[in-house]
């Protein structure tokens, strides 16, 4: 284990000492197993979604694909209106919601980061306090349904997640790292605060915006909770809630089956659940490799204490 006289240049190269070998073996085994464990369920769902229904009923969900059929996907899209509508709702809410939430977080964060703004501490605490104490689910729910008429309105899917105190704190600390001289010199040149925010600060916040957009888009795309609370009209369902309903009740699937004019016993209910899961997850996972780079960078930003 003793280190021989090491030439400084060799330090950057990995030296295979016994401890390095041990720790790498441990790392490969543990990390490798865990990574496979993370991937495995996705594999299982894909396999189940391409297995014919008869085989699913007979043998259960398979470990290894034996037969191949796109029957389940075909049925998912046989009656495309409701799936497409759910897709449309989710995409619309995700786009609008992400834009609004990033805009609010950066604009609020910018004002709170301005050292010459006299009430920044007061307002910072005003926002922060809401993370310490809340009225609970019921008064909030009453507010939304009774006084803001959330039931069956699209804004019920956007407003609840439009502003996040944590995102604002992240934005504040990121923007606080931008030299104040930029704001000051622009003020001397006669620019107003909003122009400075829009024209000078925003272009310097690309990593921040990428991170916040990703967090927000993920939250809106994966939301089923607000849909469950506020939507009773099927045309207002978003993708995740549509999936939840499909997974949950056989009754809901009977309706789908009847609409598409297929005998009940031959309806690939089991496979359809899995196919729908893939359809509902798909886009966000496909997007994943592209955003991963930003995500890791953004988490570094997010980890900074506000």
């Amino acid at each position: 284990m003793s280190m021989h006289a090491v030439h400084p240049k060799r330090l950057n190269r990995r030296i295979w000492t016994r401890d390095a070998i041990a720790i790498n073996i441990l790392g490969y085994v543990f990390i490798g197993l865990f990574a496979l464990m993370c991937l495995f369920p996705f594999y299982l769902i894909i396999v189940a979604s391409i297995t014919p229904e008869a085989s699913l009923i007979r043998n259960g969900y398979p470990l290894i694909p034996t037969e191949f059929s796109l029957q389940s996907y075909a049925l998912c899209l046989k009656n495309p209106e409701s799936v497409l509508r759910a897709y449309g709702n989710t995409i619309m809410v995700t786009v609008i919601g992400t834009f609004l939430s990033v805009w609010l977080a950066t604009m609020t964060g910018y004002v709170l980061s301005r050292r010459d703004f006299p009430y920044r501490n007061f307002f910072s605490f005003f926002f922060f306090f809401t993370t310490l104490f809340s009225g609970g689910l019921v008064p909030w729910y009453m507010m939304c349904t009774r006084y803001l008429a959330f039931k069956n309105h699209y804004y019920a899917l956007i407003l609840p997640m439009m502003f996040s105190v944590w995102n604002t704190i992240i934005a504040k600390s990121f923007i606080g790292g931008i030299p104040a001289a930029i704001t000051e010199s622009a003020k001397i040149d006669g620019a107003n605060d909003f122009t400075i925010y829009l024209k000078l600060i925003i272009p310097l916040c690309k990593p921040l915006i990428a991170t916040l957009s990703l967090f927000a888009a993920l939250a809106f795309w994966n939301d089923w909770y607000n849909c469950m609370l506020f939507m009773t009209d099927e045309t207002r369902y978003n993708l995740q809630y549509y999936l939840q309903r499909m997974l949950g009740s056989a009754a809901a699937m009977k309706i789908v089956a009847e609409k598409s004019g297929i005998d009940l016993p031959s309806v690939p209910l089991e496979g359809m659940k899995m196919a729908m899961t893939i359809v509902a997850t798909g886009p966000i996972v496909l997007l994943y490799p592209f955003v991963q780079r930003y995500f890791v960078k953004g988490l570094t930003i997010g980890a900074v204490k506000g």
Partner: protein
Amino acid sequence: MRKDSSLTRVHKKASLAHNLRKHWLLFVMLLPAVIYVIIFSYVPMTGIVLAFKKYQHAGGIYFSPWNGLKNFRFLMVAGKLGMATRNTILYNLAFIVLGVLFEMGSAILLNELVSKRFKKLSQTFMFLPYFISWVVAGAIMYNIFNYERGVFNHIVRALGGTPFDLYNSPGAWPFVIILLKLWKGTGYGSVVYLAAITGLDQEMFEAATIDGTNAWQRIRYITIPSLVPTMMILVLLAIGNIFRGDFGLFYQTVKSSALLQPATEIIDTYVFKLLINDGNIGVSAAVGLYQSVLCFITINLANWLVKRVQPDYALY
């Protein structure tokens, strides 16, 4: 956060009108967020009066008649709140302890791995579960643990064992829930720690290597101590929410099985059932108030303790 001296504060107060005129646009830019927080956080805070009222639709939140502590007495008689509270705390404690262990452990191991490609690929896989909704996670549970067709029993049957009905075995649920939580969150959490490790001064490690330390010692005496501040922030935040459960995790996996209730009911699912299924607004508001007050006390207590021991780690 509050560093300005009393002198400048007096000065500020004296010139409120002046400040308003000078910074009016900043106030306007702050306005949307302020209005939002007032509507969705501060006004609902006044709605906690519902906990002491008999809700009537005509009267709404503020004009329904008072009924004293009747809602709380109802909870005492129903007797489920204690169980839900215990479950919430125990699950959260397990999440905190195991979460820190797994996340920090994977971050340290990932950092020590020699192969960059393996590191990147495994990170990609570990991150994947973070991207899916709890609904999809519920579908995964169904695929694996479904009694008749699940993959788990598929394997058990193939090996000649007796199939296991998870949905009729409350005792197994704590393990399943904890496993699912770790599965979904470890990849994300480990990146936070990994970012903290990458931010460390590499010369420290080089100097320690020259001094003849081995990899274990460097982890023990350099890496782990430098991760403590990150850990403290995350743990403190988690402790502040120890009475708040992850609603999606429990709701989407347990569904509404009465048999599993003793092992899986948390405060959040209990409030939800009282409100949505039973429509018992006063009682569910009482549970909500109970939860909020407990959370408020814990976070302040935890922060106060941390402040006394090590002020740098305090949240506020």
